[in-house]
């Protein structure tokens, strides 16, 4: 039965590393190459690998379809509200976000939270599409 013992053990080590790298790429989007889209793809792939190695029930327990959809919609609502605020901030002279000191992680005003929102959307979209294709029905 346990032909895939190697896969499971190696997976236990590699998947957290891949996810850590994905989070690093998203958070440092405004400092180094990368950003929401590429970091989100890395995260999405790590979810797909977890689905392949540990089967669907483990992943479904942690990231159920419902939670992923709520994740997508809430990060998109967050993105729209933040961008609505910044679009109107020029007209209504609303205060701009603090830019922080150049080069540090918490710099560049809204760009960090937006990157995280886009990263979550991309990761969840990739995993949902993959999980639908594998099971052929919702």
């Amino acid at each position, binding site marked *: 039965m346990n032909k895939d013992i190697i896969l499971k053990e190696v997976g236990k080590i590699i998947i957290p590393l891949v996810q850590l790298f994905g989070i690093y790429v998203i958070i440092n989007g405004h400092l*180094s*190459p990368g*950003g929401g*889209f590429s970091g989100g793809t890395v995260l999405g792939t790590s979810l797909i690998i977890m689905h392949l190695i540990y089967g669907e029930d483990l992943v479904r327990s942690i990231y159920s379809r419902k939670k992923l959809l709520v994740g997508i919609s809430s990060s998109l609502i967050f993105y729209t509200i933040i961008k609505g605020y910044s679009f109107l901030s020029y007209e209504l002279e609303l205060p701009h976000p603090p830019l922080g000191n150049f080069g540090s992680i918490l710099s560049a005003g809204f760009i960090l939270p937006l990157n995280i929102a886009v990263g979550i959307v991309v990761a969840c979209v990739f995993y949902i*599409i993959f999980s*639908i*294709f594998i099971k*052929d029905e919702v």
Partner: protein
Amino acid sequence: MDIILTNYFETGAVILFGVGFATLMLHRNLIKKIIGMNIMDTAIFLFFIAKGYIKGKDAPIIINSFKGVDSYINPIPSALMLTGIVVAVTTTAFALALTIKLYNHYQTVDLEVILRMRGENND
């Protein structure tokens, strides 16, 4: 005509676009048509990115100090193509989903056969 030889990136992209277009038009298998669509989109991204390259300049990321305006390549095509890539990915995912559904309904992936089956039981 010699510009075609010096603009070798754009020429390569246009030929790749032609290859993708031919795959899309000639093959009857839906999966091959989707691969053709992908080749076409990638060719356009190559063409667009090649527009932004300037010889002897490096990537538009300010590492530690701002090295003046003339030492970075043109960042706009790369910014636009991020959007283009996501569009191509989503269209491919949707086309593959449709192919799966068509296979469930018609048990074939050959677009000509599917199209020839006129709606026999349209409700």
